């Protein structure tokens, strides 16, 4: 199951195709598989990153969001008297697969100014530098886009 991607990874990264290096690569692939088997690494379908056709669009949109909120946080850092009003809020995440929820929570944390504290079945606890950021999350644009990744799987 895990062998082809690992072997490809080795070949792309090494860039040398001599006999010795290919043997070393095979040995390391076997070693990694043995370690994963020993650690009872669960092979589950929903952890495979689905290459959805919407993934590039999501990444671009997320990059824009990260930049916008990063500028806001930079302003807070350099202002002589930062008006910090951190809040802990809850944003709903109903009926999500584990994968979508992981993507959603990671996106929340990746955006500066918001941080996912606790992930539950149908809600995510968020710490935010600004109460408005939690309201924006509750509006649910990020959630809609994260869901869009799932439906086109």
């Amino acid at each position: 199951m895990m062998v082809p991607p690992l072997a490809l990874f080795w070949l792309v990264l090494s860039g040398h195709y001599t006999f010795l290096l290919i043997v070393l690569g095979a040995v390391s692939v076997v070693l990694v598989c043995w370690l994963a088997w020993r650690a009872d690494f669960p092979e589950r379908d929903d952890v495979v990153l689905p290459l959805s056709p919407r993934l590039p669009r999501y990444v671009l949109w997320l990059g824009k969001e990260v930049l916008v909120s990063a500028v806001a946080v930079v302003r807070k850092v350099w202002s002589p008297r930062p008006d910090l009003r951190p809040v802990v809020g809850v944003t709903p995440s109903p009926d999500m697969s584990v994968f979508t929820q992981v993507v959603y929570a990671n996106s929340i944390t990746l955006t500066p100014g918001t941080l996912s504290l606790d992930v539950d079945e149908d809600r995510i606890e968020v710490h935010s530098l600004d109460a408005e950021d939690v309201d924006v999350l509750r509006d649910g644009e990020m959630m809609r886009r994260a869901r869009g990744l799932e439906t086109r799987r």
Partner: protein
Amino acid sequence: MIFAVMAALLVTMVLALVRAFLGPDLYNRILAINMFGTKTVLFVAVAGFLFGRPDFLDIGILYALVNFVAVVAVLRLTHHDEPATGRNGDGHS
């Protein structure tokens, strides 16, 4: 420009170290050390470009791996009394 980036990274690493020394508690220190690690990855990558040796990027990849595993391991160490949870536990509880 590469020099400016390296200077900025060095200053930030020093700031992270100051935070790690000041504390005041364990979490602030782990946070600072984690940030120090990611800055080291960037520093190694930028240094590779400065010296014209892209092989440095491999070291950067390794450092990123080790840094992540180190943070998880430290948290396991300090929270060893809690039941070890799998993917569902850590992501979902």
